[in-house]
């Protein structure tokens, strides 16, 4: 579904991704784990072509998308959900959803407002509220719902559980699993191992801009040195 090969990304002179390679299969949920500054967000942004790749390539559904403008990547079926909930604070919930609207895609669910309100019931109650009036959890839901309006085949989720209330975290996990059942492929970055375990099929650990471990959670548990070296704070 999504294939990142040998990606190198620089911020000025600092190299953040050092030849990172990653594969996401159709209908799969992969969790990208790593410490702060390991390159998780950069990986997702590079996949979305919001950051230029100095070397390497990204393929979506077998199609080379490296160097495309982000809007074309979005229209090709890759949905990006940023961290820190970049919703449009002056727009209402409904208007925020409208900004994400794209044409329906064959063989994939066609998201309409009703379906999204069913997925995130909190949003339904606040449809006419402005973005800035929402709670952190509601804003996070809105960010995801807004991206779903583009009917993506593959979703990039940046730290969906960060900074929201524990009750909402459970709800978020349930929503992600429902998206998976609906046929979406999901690559999510996480700092919380329990959350990743609850939603993901596989895990990829990154450190210093490289993938240092890839495998199932069972395999991760069997390799405590990986956790100690690359994840422990």
């Amino acid at each position, binding site marked *: 579904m999504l294939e990142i090969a040998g990606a190198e990304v620089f911020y*000025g002179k600092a190299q953040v991704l050092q030849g990172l390679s990653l594969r996401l299969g159709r209908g799969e949920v992969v969790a990208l784990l790593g410490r702060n500054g390991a390159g998780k967000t950069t990986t997702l942004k590079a996949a979305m072509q*919001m950051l230029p790749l100095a070397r390497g390539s990204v393929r979506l559904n077998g199609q080379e998308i490296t160097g495309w*403008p982000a*809007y074309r990547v*979005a229209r090709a079926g890759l949905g990006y959900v*940023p961290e820190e909930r970049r919703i449009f604070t002056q727009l209402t919930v409904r*208007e*925020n959803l*409208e*900004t994400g609207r794209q044409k329906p895609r064959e063989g994939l669910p066609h998201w309409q407002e009703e379906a999204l309100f069913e997925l995130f019931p909190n949003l339904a109650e606040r449809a006419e509220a402005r973005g800035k009036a929402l709670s952190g959890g509601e804003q996070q839901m809105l960010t995801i719902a807004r991206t779903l309006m583009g009917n993506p085949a593959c979703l990039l989720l940046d730290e969906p559980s960060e900074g929201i209330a524990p009750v909402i975290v459970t709800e978020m996990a349930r929503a992600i699993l429902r998206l998976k059942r609906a046929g979406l492929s999901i690559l999510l970055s996480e700092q919380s191992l329990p959350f990743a375990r609850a939603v993901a099929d596989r895990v990829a650990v990154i450190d210093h801009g490289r993938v240092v471990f890839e495998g199932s959670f069972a395999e991760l548990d069997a390799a405590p040195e990986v956790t100690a070296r690359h994840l422990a704070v």
Partner: protein
Amino acid sequence: MGLILAQILTGLANAGALFMVASGLSLIFGVTRIVNFAHGSFYMLGAYLGWSLMQVLPGSFGFWGAILLAWLGVGLIGALVEIVILRRVYAAPELFQLVATFGVILIVQDLALMIWGPEDLLGPRAPGLRGVVRILGEPVPKYDLALIALTPLVALALWALITRTRFGILVRAATQDREMVGALGVNQRWLFTATFALGCALAGLGGALQLPRGGADLLMDFTILTSVFVVVVVGGMGSLPGAYLASVLISVVGVFGVSYLPQSTLALTFVVMVAVLMWRPFGLLGREEVAGELGQVGPPEDPIAPASARMRLLVGMALAALAALPVYGSPFALVLATDIAIFCLFAASLHFLLGQAGLVSFGHAAFYGGGAYAAALLVRHAGAPMELALLLAPLIAGGLALGIGFVALRASGVYFAMLTLAFAQLLWSLVWQWAGVTGGSDGLIGIWPARWADSNTVFYLLSFALSVGGILTLRHAAHAPFGYALRAARDNAPRAAATGFDTRALQWAAFTFAGAMAGLAGGLFVFAKGSVFPNELEIARSFDALIVVFLGGVKTLSGGWVGGAVFEAGVDWLTRFDYWRLALGLVVLFIVTLAPQGLVGTARALWARVRP
């Protein structure tokens, strides 16, 4: 009672065009982050296009059809400008985009002159709306009433477009976070083009609609621009209701000013503006986050370092060669070199403000012209000798900067920039209207240097010494702790404040310092020319300096004077042609699109590429 009502109605009618131009400017800024300086030019084009169409289209249908076509036509021209020029400079630092719009102003001015000629065009009366209606005994033009009714309709349509359509939702979303809109699958290029075209079309509509009231002339572009900046600052950038409210407020105040305080129309407007800003720094209905910063985007510049010994030697030799110009140069070369030296000091002072303090002033001519007028007035009315006038010119200009800075620095970013322009324009109109003292449009003439400095050679040496001295002082300040503190405040104001700097006081000091240096240049200018006219204070003079600084390169310490020298020499050559503004505009656009780092920056980049 009837008179007051009639005046309010005139004010409301005046507000129409102002609102249309201001809302277009505001809309464009929100989405593209470009302060479209050329917005007045689109207003002017709307008037001229409408006038031409009204000549060929007959009757009442023709009149309104012409306005509609002018609206569409200016929108199309706007789209063309966006696609051909602005698209190429979105990635460049924001200030470069401003320079690109200056280029558009120059080109439109000369094209309008070529096509429609220098005479003011009288606007045709609107069919069916000639004559007046008596309201409480006072005559009110019927067309005014039509405009009063039409403006809210346009405002309403615009409001519906922005709040009720997908286009409007995307425009508002892009105003907050352009990158995110792109990541959601929206092609920003067309969103930008559409917004720019819509904004320009609104300006064009405003221009065409006011034809029966004011006709069309070649000064319309700058005249409306000042009022529009005031409206946008008072109403709040990015707010349509704010733009409407402020347009009405400013227009009504203007009309009452004309009747009761005819000498101080503009001054009254400014009193209103200052009062609003003291109370709400982001305008009546503006929001802080919409204002944005006109700071330096792009990669951080390298830390500045004192010039190497070899470089000092080279510069020293070059200066010595220039000082020896009277020995080998022609008399004409001496006069030109004097002009260049003075202009370099003026440009370097603005460059200091922009580069070191990160303060983008659109009205630096206030201090250049202020210094010039201070010197001239001292000579004319106090009989001061040249030496005293040259000493006081920078002090008076500095004092002026102290006062203007006090108000303007309450705002930041684009608001600050617009305020400086508005103040410069206030000064210009004061000089223009106060003819008894300043000579008005006739200027002050016969202000010659003291006898000992009267020869071209001595005056050249004097200007050269003072200009180079001024530039070196500015340069020294950049290397001094003051310069370091300024750059800290520029790059990260909160952090600089947390380190113990009073950032506003620093900026205020820099603004005053730069103003004083510009005043010195202005003082020299008066004695070099023997005269001074209001155009040393006008917007075009401020723009000259801005263009120069960008041509030279903001992020290079020598950008100011290098750009100044190239510009002044180039303009001297260009003005020999009939349509030199057109040529200059094309040169500016050429440089902006091809050498976005400025002359010094590009030369450095080329040097880095060739050097082994």
